[in-house]
């Protein structure tokens, strides 16, 4: 068990976002977190990263309580892409991305050579010829790939992404998932929040659903059961499509 989230309860402004939630994340696995707006996906990720303190409960990495670790020690375990990344518009892309190496310069050894990490990011995120460009000259999708590269450079055993598919075109979404697959094969744990989870199903990622009011449940891809849960969660109907023995789900509005 790489990462264990135990009995987390978190409420914000009187609203309960998580109630006694427990999850165990394993090595070499990819986890997608889905749920409606405001249900607490980001909150959940921030609790996993110990950026937010829950009212009760703890997070353990390989048996160690995260509370006992310093920022620098945690930075050797976790890397994080927030939903709305902040960076200096005036910086060049490589200046931003290179800073992901900071914890490894402070506590050696680095996971693998910086040039190798740069190559991986360049290959999967298609950043060739973009390193020297100023952030202010990049498009939304290019910026998103760039900031994902910063997480790739940090290269930690647990990687957390909050809506990494934002701004990415369809082919870059697939390439990002190929990158996830590579990281998974290397033994890493990937956790990400997402809205359109059909590609997640395609890649056999484990899917957790956070519902309003604090429930956290795992979704197994059984058609009727999932349709029922999705309808209950999102308040709309879902159509299904089946290819290669797998179901995919599409919301639609019923005509009255």
């Amino acid at each position: 068990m790489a990462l264990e989230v135990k009995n987390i309860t978190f409420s914000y402004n009187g609203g309960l976002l998580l109630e006694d939630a427990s999850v165990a994340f394993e090595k070499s696995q990819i986890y997608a977190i889905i749920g409606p707006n405001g249900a607490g996906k980001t909150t959940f990720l921030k609790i996993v990263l110990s950026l937010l303190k829950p009212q009760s409960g703890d997070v353990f990495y390989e048996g160690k309580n995260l509370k006992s670790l310093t920022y620098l020690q945690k930075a050797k375990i976790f890397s994080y892409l927030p939903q709305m990344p902040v960076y200096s518009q005036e910086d060049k892309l490589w200046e931003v991305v290179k800073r992901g190496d900071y914890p490894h310069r402070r506590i050696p050894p680095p996971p693998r050579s910086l040039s190798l990490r740069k190559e991986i990011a360049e290959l999967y995120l298609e950043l060739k010829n973009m390193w020297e460009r100023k952030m202010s000259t990049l498009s939304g999708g290019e910026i998103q790939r760039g900031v994902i590269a910063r997480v790739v450079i940090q290269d930690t055993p647990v990687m957390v992404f909050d809506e990494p598919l934002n701004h990415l075109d369809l082919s870059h979404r697939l390439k990002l998932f190929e990158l996830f697959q590579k990281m998974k094969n290397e033994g890493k744990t990937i956790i990400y929040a997402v809205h359109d989870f059909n590609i997640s199903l395609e890649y056999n990622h484990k899917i957790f659903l956070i519902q309003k009011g604090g429930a956290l449940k795992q979704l197994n891809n059984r058609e009727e059961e999932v349709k029922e849960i999705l309808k209950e969660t999102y308040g709309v109907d879902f159509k299904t499509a089946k290819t290669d023995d797998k179901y995919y789900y599409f919301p639609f509005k019923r005509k009255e």
Partner: protein
Amino acid sequence: MKKTLFFIALFCVALFSAVFLFLPKNLDPSLKFEFITAIRLPEIFAVVLAGAALSVSGLAFQTVLRNDLADPYVLGISGGSCFGVTLSIIAFGGTGSGIFFRASSSFIFGLVCLFIIIKLSGNSPERLLLLGVISNIFFSTLARVFTLQLKPSELTSINYFLLGFISPLNSNEILFSFAAFIFFATPLFLLGDEIDILSFSDDESKTMGVNVQKTRILSILFATILASLIVSICGMIGFIGLIVPHIARIFTANDFKKLFLISIFLGPSITLFAYSFSKMANAKIVVPIGLYINLFGILFFVYLFAKKGFSNGA
């Protein structure tokens, strides 16, 4: 590295011109050496220190507060520090009971000012600057009000101080201020990598291994100490902390340590040229250096403003 060497060379040229050029015309050649060591060098020391300390202080404020217009003057530290120095001069007369007391009083009032301004501004860059300007005017006016009870002779010295007058430093004061500069500028430089990471959001910085709160507080503290040290020696000098980091950014990447090294040589070069200029105008009398630096600074500022404005408009 090459770029840093260029700025070291520039600094040497500026230093040479400040030391040897523009000596009084009718100076007895046999007194030349004495004149330079006894009168010029202490002044030049203060000029160099002011340029270096204000530049790196401005660089730190601009980076940490993510505000391109921040510097010790604009943030109102200079005004608060100035008030602190005035109080110590009024309380103890003359040089305000020595440089240590003067610098401490300067630092405490500068820090209080900065703290109030940052609290009131609530993270809005525009409010921060506006409050800084208000605070500067308020405290320098308050300093003047306090000086009303003084004798005319003392009044002149305070007026000169408020204009940015370089007071002749004795060897103890030179030693003290140089030691203080090294003692606080070095850790500021060493915080460079952490300060760079603060360009991300707090959450990102934390997950990248940086103690955000600690880095921010320490760097602001060091930058404030450096700025208030200069105020206690030279009075209010504006713009240097604002323009030097901007010029440095033209030459190198957005990397705090690189910018720091360039700023620490570029800042004194500019103040030394301003000093030479003031001596060119009149080598005999002691001119408030702050006046010339402000004049230089405003010209640079207008140039940068015009340049940025044009490039954005294109």
